[in-house]
């Protein structure tokens, strides 16, 4: 692999054509006098087409292009957590040190801190036969996460020497008998999925604390979900809620072509938010990739691969990882922009013909797997989609919906009514309940699935009744149907609506969700009885204890109080009979 030199022939935005070198596809090259980082994305004739990860203005034809022999890779090892990277794994704080607050160019930065010393404690010992993925030892990476140092893929043998102690990530911690030296840091090409033994069917829910998600449209650990929605409908808030509250061990959050301030918000907030599971700061389990809308598009294209490779790496340690990509549409647009500069034959709406296969390949990297070491790990992927005009008939939404198993459809109308999360309960779906129901029966309540069905059914009935109400007004309906409308309203306002910015309401665990759902059904039942006993609907729905029950969800300790509040409500409803 000679380090031959070529020269630039043409520059068109982020796409540069070089002559005089014959690199491999996806090889990283250095472009121009400033050595800008780029990746070879097409070879034709004697020309190599390169997408450049940094701004190209001022670069001229004739400047040098140098091969590196490497494909685009990330550095994996202790030190990934709590970090914020750009799309090609350059730590943003490092860039700030060398460039100041504006991102200029021509600066390299390692993904991992190569100097930092970690306390490695060996768990394998001399004489052990180890192979790819086996854990050699651990490092307490953050307060809550133990980093498992693994044998890199493709390596196996008998351990000749291994020692606990203080090392940086490039020092050898283990030597095999054939002389292979293993360091804590490994590199992996981002466009290649990391290997595992086999995929399992998901059967455990990813608990998010978001009622409409957990209760009606659950995502499984290792599953895939798409959140399409017009601007301002709540994609980012939902993704951030998942990053905060989902019960994954590790969170990888990719801000792909979105706002700078949103990343700052995460950076500001996460160190102060407690993980409900560990009681420690959420930042301890989080890695962020931020390639905002105004950062180079080629690096945006790479950012999702950088993120998912990091996610897979933690999965390989046996962790449950949740990855959020906000927004996959911006990633697709980056592909479109590059593709159009390459003058490729466009497919639908100018997107490259390979759009849907790229989307599929990306979501395929999710899953619950048996790791090479025989453990159980998962990557759940949640992708936001930003359809133009909110119309999901466009290629990115359609390409996503063909693959993902959960569809959380955000609705501009609901957002406008400030019904949040603005997830449309009529067209959203999850294909996971059949595989998760046993888990709910065993871990929450034996009739959990049935209660869910009842709640969904009520919402369906409401939708049908609403059509009639639109024509004749609600007073024209028989009283039992009017009651159904009230019950459905309670489901919407009390259960489905959840304020992400309210300290208490922001998170409900599954047990509480179940209790709240039961409370609604109990309201229905008691009201029916009271009305049959002569009570007026108006009086039944207006009992003060119901308002208390509903408002109570904003108060801490609600799970302890709700049963009592429910009892009070039921009693007041029964009393409405006597009043008549």
């Amino acid at each position, binding site marked *: 692999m000679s380090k031959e030199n070529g020269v630039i*022939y*043409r*520059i*068109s*935005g982020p796409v540069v*054509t070089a002559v005089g070198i014959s690199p491999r596809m996806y090889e990283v090259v250095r472009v121009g006098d400033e050595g800008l980082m780029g990746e070879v994305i097409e070879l034709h004739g004697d020309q190599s087409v390169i997408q450049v990860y940094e*701004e*190209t*203005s*001022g*670069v*001229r*034809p*004739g*400047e040098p292009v140098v091969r590196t022999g490497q494909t685009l890779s990330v550095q994996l090892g202790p030190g990934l957590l709590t970090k*914020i990277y750009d799309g090609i794994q350059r730590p*943003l704080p490092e860039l700030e040190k060398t*460039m*100041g*607050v*504006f*991102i*200029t160019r021509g600066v390299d930065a390692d993904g991992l801190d190569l100097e930092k010393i970690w306390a490695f404690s060996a768990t394998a010992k001399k004489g052990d036969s180890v192979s790819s993925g086996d854990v050699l030892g651990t490092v307490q990476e953050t307060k809550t996460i133990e980093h498992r140092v693994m044998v890199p893929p493709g390596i196996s043998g008998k351990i000749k020497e291994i020692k606990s102690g203080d090392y940086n990530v490039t020092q050898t911690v283990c030597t095999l008998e054939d002389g292979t030296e293993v360091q804590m840091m490994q590199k992996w090409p981002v466009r290649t999925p990391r290997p595992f033994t086999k995929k399992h069917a998901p059967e455990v829910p990813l608990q998010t604390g978001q009622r409409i998600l957990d209760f009606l449209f659950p995502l499984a650990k290792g599953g895939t979900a798409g959140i399409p929605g*017009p*601007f*301002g409908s709540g994609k980012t808030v939902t993704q951030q809620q998942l990053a905060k509250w989902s019960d994954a061990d590790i969170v990888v959050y990719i801000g792909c*072509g979105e*706002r*700078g*301030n949103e*990343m*700052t*918000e995460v950076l500001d907030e996460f160190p102060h938010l407690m993980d409900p599971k560990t009681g420690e700061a959420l930042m301890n389990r989080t890695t962020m990739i*931020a390639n*905002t*809308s*105004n950062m180079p*598009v080629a690096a945006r294209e790479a950012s999702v691969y950088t993120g998912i490779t990091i996610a897979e790496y933690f999965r390989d340690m046996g962790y449950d990882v949740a990855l959020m990509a906000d927004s996959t549409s*911006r990633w697709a*647009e980056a592909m479109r*922009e590059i593709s*159009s500069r390459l003058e490729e034959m*466009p497919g639908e709406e*100018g997107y490259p013909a390979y759009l849907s296969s790229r989307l599929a390949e990306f979501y395929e990297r999710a899953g619950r797997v048996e790791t090479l070491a025989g453990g159980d790990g998962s990557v759940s992927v949640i992708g936001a989609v930003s359809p*133009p*005009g909110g*119309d999901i008939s466009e290629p990115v939404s359609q390409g996503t919906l063909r693959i993902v198993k959960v569809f959380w459809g955000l609705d501009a109308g609901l957002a*406008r*009514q*400030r019904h949040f999360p603005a997830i449309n309960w009529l067209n959203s779906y999850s294909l996971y309940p059949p595989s998760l129901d046993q888990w709910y029966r065993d871990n929450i309540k034996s009739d959990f699935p049935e209660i869910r069905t009842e709640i969904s059914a009520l919402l369906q009935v409401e939708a049908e009744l609403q059509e009639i*109400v*639109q*024509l*004749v*007004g*609600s*007073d024209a309906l028989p009283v039992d149907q009017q009651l159904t409308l009230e019950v459905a309203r309670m489901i919407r306002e009390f259960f489905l609506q959840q304020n992400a*910015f309210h300290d208490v309401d922001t998170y409900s665990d599954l047990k509480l969700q179940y209790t709240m759902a039961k409370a609604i059904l109990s309201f229905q039942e008691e009201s029916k009885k009271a009305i049959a006993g002569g009570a007026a609907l108006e009086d039944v729905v*207006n009992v003060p204890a119901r*308002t208390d029950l509903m408002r109570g969800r904003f108060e801490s300790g609600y799970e302890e109080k709700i049963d009592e509040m429910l009892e009070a409500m039921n009693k007041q409803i029964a009393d409405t009979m006597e009043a008549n």
Partner: protein
Amino acid sequence: MTGKEYRTITDVKGPLVFLNKTEPVAFGEIVELRLTDGTLKNGQVLDTSDDQVIVQVFEGTASIDKQTGIKFLGDVFKLPVSTDMIGRILDGAGRPRDGGPAIVADEMADIIGAAINPYSRQSPSSFIQTGISAIDACTSLVRGQKLPIFSASGLPHNDIALQIARQAKLVDSDDDFVVVFCAMGITAEEYNFFVHDLERTGALENACLFVNLADDPAVERLITPRLALTAAEYLAFEHDYHVLVIYTDMTNYCESLRQIGAAREEVPGRRGYPGYMYTDLAMLYERAGLVKGKKGSITQFPILTMPGDDITHPIPDLSGYITEGQIVISRELHQKGIYPPINVLPSLSRLMNAGIGDGKTREDHKSVSDQLYAAYAQGRELRGLVAIVGEDALNERDLQLLKFADIFENQFLRQSRDEDRSIGEGTLDYAWELLTNIDTKYLVRLDQKWIDKYHPTEKKE
């Protein structure tokens, strides 16, 4: 800087000039074109290779022929910046338009503007009181935000922008704003309206204007906002100013973008606009914000007119995907004679939560705002129903909500062009007063503790 002059134009297409046989020309390099009659034009390199260079000509390609001389100036586009820009009126390419002297550069700043490192940003969180109730209560603006006005032709977006520019103040400090105003393809009449108003209120002395009017070169519009933002960044981050950037009309900017795309025979995205329009707009809008360790800030108010009043049109759509909310002007409210005709339902400020509440505006702000929205939204929906079934079919709650929608529009929204309402008494207390038209049991968005404290008739002293 004294490069060779080439006369090697092969093609001229729309605003683009194609030439060959040059020495290596940099991507983005600035170009000077000398026409046979001596006229000078300026351009920028869009594509460069050993064989061909494509130049975008800001002033349009009229009168360019194959004899036109082309000189590459060796550098990318830079703007001379200095604090002397304050109080000046410049043209769409940054040259004086007010008859004053050229700006003596304190610095030459690259107009493309590098991205702010997300790690170096500081979250915007200082409430800006605009004195307009609809905005302050429901779509609160914070310093460092980018909040566009989505309007349409014939609506009073300019009045609103000016009212904001006049009245905007921070409640917790008396720092003033400097206005950077950027006109892209607006009419002379609109422009005069802005200038007169700024003059009348003395704001012109505290403003810097970049002006490209309807009869100025269309392609120049692509650089005008970049100049304005470059000036804004210089003032904010080198000289600690709080800068309010108003640019109008983004729709004209996008038309110019489409024109370039068409001339390059690019594969168009939706409705003929380039596929990279999202990224291009982001390169402007993302130049708002606050930066750690710097005192200044950039708050952006882009104004755009939605073609056909259609919010799903690519221009408002892509803008909405980048900005931190939007203020939507409604033709229906305007026709009802309500000023400012802001439809709060599709309007949104995403940074609102960070800027309001205890210690910033008032503890009940969020609750009140949620309740206003909910009640108004339901009231408006009921209007549709009443049109079909009549008021008789409504129950008590619905009747109250229906009535509230009118009250909200006629009393809360409506205010005069120079009425500057304070957030506490002028806006929030007023909202409480109007909410007494609805029974408290229907006010489900209000926390009980705020009802106990602020409800005019039900509060517990």
